[in-house]
């Protein structure tokens, strides 16, 4: 008995020839103009560019093209885009001369792409100009009204830059989502801050007594004028946030900040206008300026990633419908019950429907988590979201798109609550107590001066001085800078997080739930082992020759595993039995591959090893049983170290939509009672809800639509993505699969952030205590405020950034 382990990998063929267009290895021999091409698609792009003198494309970067190999879609049918209701939503602007559309093009990846897409006007008359935004992977194309939208889309699709047009984009009109107001606010605050500082210089240097009264009045007046836009415009977000907090009956950190700003402004106006002092306008504007910088630093955005996907982003936009024996394409949302639709290889079934004809092998991995495609026969229901692999099939729609099983799950109201609303960020927790404490202290100062000295003026001064000096700027700045820095450090690794609040929620999580397929296993790759009598090369070739004729996914995996697909014998009398296996005569030998009962005729496995599963393929040659191929999932690299580490401090669970065949492998990493198989999307939701009800803070890792509902329920959700980061369910974070080996360190790092933030709070609280002690005794001068407040802020910020970076370095994350 022999056991061989070999990995089946996508690029196992080692040929020297690389496609001139896309750089993929060439299988067939396609030559043109002395260059090799891997497929007709690549060649035709080259021809288009060659004829139009655009071969500069190939000089900017080597093999810049986009491969056509994995795209089964057809590129000519876009006429449905010219439907007025669709067009209206896609075009961002149109008049009687020009039309503008912004396309999201995921395949933009290099500078050649930018060059080509910005030279479209040379390829097609009517295109006026186009501008690429590389970071958000969008192209804004302006074209004249002589050109139809469908022609533009089909042109860029033919070049390999298929724009992603989803159902969502046709229902919601395009909006420019860039909010630039924070830049304006910073600009204004910075301008006023620096000018106020200059005008306040005489005060700092105690030159004021030597200055003429006129100058003092002028400087004071200018200070007020400059502080007005800072107070009313730049600081506006803090007031509105504090107010909305009050309305919701909670005190957030913006409340003490607003209180401080308010007192600063009006006391300064009073002092300047009565000539009793120089005011604190410099502190006010500096504070606002730094706070706004903290805000910008905290919001690190990933333009090309979409964290808010709904089912609509996954569905195709158009579908081929049979009408009077003709195929026409219509927008998916116009599908009605009873329509006959045609789905081809690699297309997604858009609505629940009944199979009418054709060989349906539906890949539900995205919907249910099952790793292998399922065969369906005529009359069976196929749920929306499945992807057809194989030939074309015909279906009849039984439910409109927005009522399908999947969408109803998605729309269920209880899944809608987002974690953010319920989670109170650290800074707001602190802010709440802080407000009470400073209100008590300032009132105490007031009463002290009023009761003991009966001096109302000093009492008011001491009251306001405490409020000014206690403004929690250091505290308010610590967490944006700490979290912003963590966001960047993890982003560089390939772990993209939606917002700073997510890190806070990550740091308090105590339970981690994993999905199996695509999350802890590699997508598309599998591990094959053969056990049985050892096969000679000749026998392997016989089996390969048979397997290559079958379109069953397991046969295909085996055929790939056995080597070069072109080196085969002819197969005669080939038969395939659905759900059982296939047979054929190769070189005079009868070969059978398939299930146990089909191949051996008995239900008992003939081997000592009885752990065969659904994913085992049995082989017989000339009626004698030879062995079994077992196809296992390939786990992500370093999984044992990751899981063992996480096990130390977290409760980890596995919820798989797949069958139990992998149970033995998985029990090495998870405790038996924490492994659940055959979980429907609804089961997963219930599991997570029950964990949450028992007081756990749940973090969920998933990858497909089947996890999407559960991920919405979890406190933190992270989508794991192989490849293009395009197909991820809505989540708080997106993680590149390559990060997985370091996952345990990333999670532990996020946990340490909590301690760092609280240490930062302590540091700035110390400054506040010193300041308040002085303020209580009513000896605050503008100079002191001007020194103490920036000092507190800057040291808190420096601590936050340095500590998070240092920790990351210690954990080998930088």
């Amino acid at each position, binding site marked *: 008995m022999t056991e061989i382990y070999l990995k089946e990998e996508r690029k196992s063929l080692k040929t020297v020839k690389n496609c001139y267009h896309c750089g993929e290895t060439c299988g067939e021999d396609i030559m043109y103009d002395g260059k090799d091409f891997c497929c007709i698609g690549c060649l035709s792009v080259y021809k288009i560019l060659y004829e139009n003198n655009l071969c500069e494309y190939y000089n900017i970067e080597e093999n810049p093209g986009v491969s056509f190999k994995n795209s089964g879609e057809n590129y000519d049918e876009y006429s449905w885009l010219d439907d007025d209701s669709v067009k209206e939503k896609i075009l961002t602007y149109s008049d009687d001369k020009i039309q503008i559309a912004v396309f999201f093009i995921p395949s933009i990846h290099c*500078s050649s792409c930018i060059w080509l897409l910005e030279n479209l006007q040379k390829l097609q008359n009517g295109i006026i100009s186009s*501008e690429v935004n590389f970071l958000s992977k969008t192209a804004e194309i302006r074209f004249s009204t002589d050109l139809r939208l469908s022609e533009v889309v089909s042109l860029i699709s033919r070049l390999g830059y298929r724009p992603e047009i989803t159902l969502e984009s046709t229902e919601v009109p395009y909006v420019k989502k860039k909010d630039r107001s924070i830049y304006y606010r910073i*600009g204004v605050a910075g*301008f006023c801050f620096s000018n106020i500082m200059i005008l306040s210089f005489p005060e700092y240097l105690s030159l004021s007594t030597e200055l*003429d009264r006129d100058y003092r009045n002028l400087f004071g007046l200018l200070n007020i004028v400059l502080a007005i836009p800072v107070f009313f415009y730049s600081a506006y977000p803090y007031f509105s946030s504090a107010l909305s907090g009050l309305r919701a009956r909670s005190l957030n950190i913006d409340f003490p900040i607003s209180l401080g700003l308010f007192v600063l402004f009006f006391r300064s106006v009073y002092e300047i206008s009565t000539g009793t002092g120089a005011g604190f306008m410099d502190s006010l504007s500096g504070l606002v300026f730094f706070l706004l910088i903290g805000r910008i630093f905290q919001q690190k955005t990933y333009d090309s990633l979409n964290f808010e996907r709904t089912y609509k982003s996954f569905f195709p936009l158009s579908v081929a419908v049979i009408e009077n024996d003709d195929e026409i394409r219509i927008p998916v949302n116009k599908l009605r019950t009873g329509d006959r639709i045609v789905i081809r290889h690699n297309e997604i079934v858009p609505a629940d429907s009944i199979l009418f004809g054709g060989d349906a092998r539906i890949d539900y991995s995205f919907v249910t988590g099952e790793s292998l495609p399922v065969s369906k026969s005529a009359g069976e229901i196929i749920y929306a979201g499945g992807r057809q692999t194989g030939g074309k099939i015909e279906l009849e729609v039984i439910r409109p798109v927005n009522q399908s099983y999947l969408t109803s799950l998605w729309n269920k109201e209880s899944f809608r609550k987002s974690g953010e609303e319920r989670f109170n960020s650290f800074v707001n927790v602190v802010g709440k107590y802080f407000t009470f404490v400073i209100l008590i202290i300032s009132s105490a100062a007031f009463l002290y001066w009023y009761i003991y000295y009966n001096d109302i003026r000093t009492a008011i001064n001491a009251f306001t001085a405490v409020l000014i000096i206690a403004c929690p700027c250091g505290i308010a700045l610590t967490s944006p800078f700490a979290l912003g820095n963590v966001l960047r450090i993890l982003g560089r690794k390939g772990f993209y997080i939606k917002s700073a609040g997510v890190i806070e929620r990550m740091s308090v999580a105590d339970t981690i739930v994993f999905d199996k397929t695509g999350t802890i296993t590699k997508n598309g790759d599998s591990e094959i082992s053969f056990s049985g009598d050892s096969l000679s090369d000749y026998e392997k070739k016989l089996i390969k020759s048979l397997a290559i004729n079958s379109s069953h996914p397991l046969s295909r995996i085996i055929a790939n595993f056995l080597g070069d697909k072109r080196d085969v014998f002819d197969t005669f009398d080939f038969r395939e039995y659905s759900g059982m296996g296939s047979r054929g005569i190769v070189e005079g030998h009868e070969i059978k591959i398939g299930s146990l009962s089909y191949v051996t005729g008995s239900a008992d496995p003939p081997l000592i090893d009885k752990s065969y599963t659904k994913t085992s393929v049995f082989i017989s040659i000339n009626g004698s049983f030879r062995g079994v191929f077992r196809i296992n999932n390939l786990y992500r690299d370093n999984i044992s170290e990751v899981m063992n580490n996480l096990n130390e401090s977290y409760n980890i669970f596995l919820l798989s939509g797949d069958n139990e065949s992998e149970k033995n492998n998985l029990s090495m990493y998870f405790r038996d009672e924490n492994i659940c198989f055959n979980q429907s999307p609804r089961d997963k939701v219930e599991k997570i809800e029950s964990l949450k009800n028992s007081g756990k803070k749940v973090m969920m890792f998933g990858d497909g639509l089947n996890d999407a509902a559960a991920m919405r329920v979890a406190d933190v959700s992270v989508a794991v993505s192989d490849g293009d980061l395009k197909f991820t369910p809505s989540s708080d974070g997106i993680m590149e699969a390559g990060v997985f080996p370091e996952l345990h360190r990333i999670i532990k790092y996020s946990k340490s952030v909590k301690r760092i933030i609280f240490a930062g709070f302590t540091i700035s609280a110390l400054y506040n205590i010193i300041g308040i002690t002085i303020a209580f005794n009513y000896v605050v001068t503008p100079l002191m405020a001007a020194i103490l407040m920036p000092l507190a802020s800057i040291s808190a910020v420096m601590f936050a950034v340095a500590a998070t970076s240092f920790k990351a370095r210690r954990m080998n994350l930088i």
Partner: protein
Amino acid sequence: MSVIYILIFFSFIVAGGFLLAFLWAVKSGQYDDGYTPSVRILFEDKKRKDTKQK
């Protein structure tokens, strides 16, 4: 000493000019894409039409 009035006046004009320039730069979208222009400038034979916002 009244020269200070003139100095303050002009310093405000200069600083205000920079503030306006900054606000204009933000408004025209120069901070929206920090990468593509750096690639675009390296392409030769740039006969692109004016692509300013409408």
